[in-house]
């Protein structure tokens, strides 16, 4: 019975994770609860993909540190993982390309599992085929996980390519965690593009207001204030050991234009 009509889902979160906070981790938990509660999805994996240094965001520290902190933070999770493919790219990679990459990875992994299945679970598969003869082993659906701020950023000129948004929403799907004070439904209503794909946008209400932003965490660290219980203990320790966030690191990329803006502004003006 289990999984007959349920789609398997992999959640992918792209972002700076500078540094990763408990709120980032909560987003995964909230998204999984929400999707599984519909009875239509089974969330099998979460992937955190820190952006590469080429993104040029102000105060963005080296990817190696951001990946390591995310790895430490997810050590106690049984389903959330960190992937460094995106941040190892020499230049900033469009989110759509990151999603495509992980979708292909997932397909390849599923293929391997299928091969294993034919040997080890032949019996079970025969049974399944007998009951649902139309069932084809599907590749898990890959959905992009984000906060309401990302959904709202879709309409900022030159930050996203409209074709990319259409493919992300149309082919993959989006899980959006709302925060108090933002109304994603109104936002979707006001954008023709978002409206067109509204059925692939899963809005997840956040039942506890939890606005731990990485910006606030960096600010507290610069001022020598405690960030305990906002981030996992291991991450706090890593930050202290490597003295990661100070007023110098905050000045990184201070006068540099964000990579997507650079790329798309150049393209649209030509």
């Amino acid at each position, binding site marked *: 019975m289990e999984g007959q009509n349920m789609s398997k889902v992999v959640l992918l979160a792209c972002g700076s994770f500078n540094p990763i906070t*408990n709120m980032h*981790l*909560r987003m995964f938990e909230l998204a999984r609860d929400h999707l599984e509660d519909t009875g239509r999805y089974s969330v099998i994996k979460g992937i955190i993909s820190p952006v590469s240094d080429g993104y040029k965001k102000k105060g963005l520290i080296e990817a190696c540190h951001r990946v390591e902190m995310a790895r430490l933070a997810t050590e106690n999770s049984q389903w959330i993982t960190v992937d460094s493919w995106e941040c190892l790219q020499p230049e900033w990679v469009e989110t759509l390309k990151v999603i495509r990459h992980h979708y292909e990875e997932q397909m390849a992994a599923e293929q391997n599992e299928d091969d294993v299945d034919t040997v080890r679970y032949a019996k079970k598969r025969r049974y399944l085929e007998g009951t649902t003869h139309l069932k084809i082993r599907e590749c898990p659906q890959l959905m992009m996980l984000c906060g309401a701020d990302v959904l709202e950023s879709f309409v900022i000129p030159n930050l996203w390519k409209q074709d990319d948004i259409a493919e992300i929403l149309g082919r993959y799907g989006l899980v959006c965690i709302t925060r108090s004070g933002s109304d994603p439904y109104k936002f979707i209503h006001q954008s023709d593009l978002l409206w067109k794909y509204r059925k692939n946008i899963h809005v997840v209400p956040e039942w506890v207001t*939890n606005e731990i932003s990485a910006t*606030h965490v960096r600010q507290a660290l610069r001022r020598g204030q*405690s960030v305990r*219980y*906002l981030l996992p203990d291991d991450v706090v320790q890593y930050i202290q050991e490597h003295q990661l966030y100070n007023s110098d690191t905050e000045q990184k990329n201070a006068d540099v234009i964000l990579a997507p803006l650079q790329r798309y502004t150049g393209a649209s003006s030509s």
Partner: protein
Amino acid sequence: ESVKFWLWSEISSIYFSTMDILLACGSFNPITNQHMRLFELARDHMHRTGQYQVVSGIMSPVSDNYGKQGLVLAKHRTAMAKLALQSSNWVTVDEWESQQPDWTETAVTMRYHHEQILKRYEQSKPTFTSSDKNIASLSGENRTITDVPPQLKLLCGADFLDTFKIPGMWRDDHVEEVVGRFGLICVSRGALQPERAVHESDALTRHSGSIHLVREWVRNETSATEVRRALRRGMSVKYLIPDSVIEYIHQHNLYTEDSERRNADAVLRPLAKQARPEF
């Protein structure tokens, strides 16, 4: 040499400021990361003033007779708080209040802890004073710190201030004692306005000098009520409370629909205990 310097800087920082011990009373049903954040925020705030040195924190879970709906046994609440604070090097759990046969007024709990602090201070005074004198003479200072034991302050969230408004919840002399004699540190979160609560109470306004208001700019409204609700419904509470506490809750099957019905029709103990006949 470096040890001597360290000792000097440690003692001088204590020397020039008042030592504070923070006490948080509450249900802790269960303890959440937010409870522990209160301590961190309060300590940062007090240190920023330059006048206080927070030396330790005490978490005191209320006893089972408090009569609050959904309150699980004190032994569990204490065990969870201990697990959560295992990694803290300055906040500890104290079981005295939770072990009292009846609910204890906050003022009485504070008196108890104040006495304990004085006792420990008296015991440690001789050695402490002599070492300080040595260092004080090194720097040419003649003052000694002998007569300043640590102060006890009550640490609370902004919602706690609102309880002062509830008729019958607090005895007037207890408000005077808690705020006037000891002092209060209140961490406000979200939309709650602690200044208003102070303004609306004459006693709190009278002692507003000993009330420290700490603003939390991050809206982090993890309440134990929400955590229990999520647990009853089988939703994830990971990253809201420590992993060790989640494990304990599952092991003992603590928060269920049944446990939430506990004390459902009971009158809150302070209201019953302090009720005066109306004429």
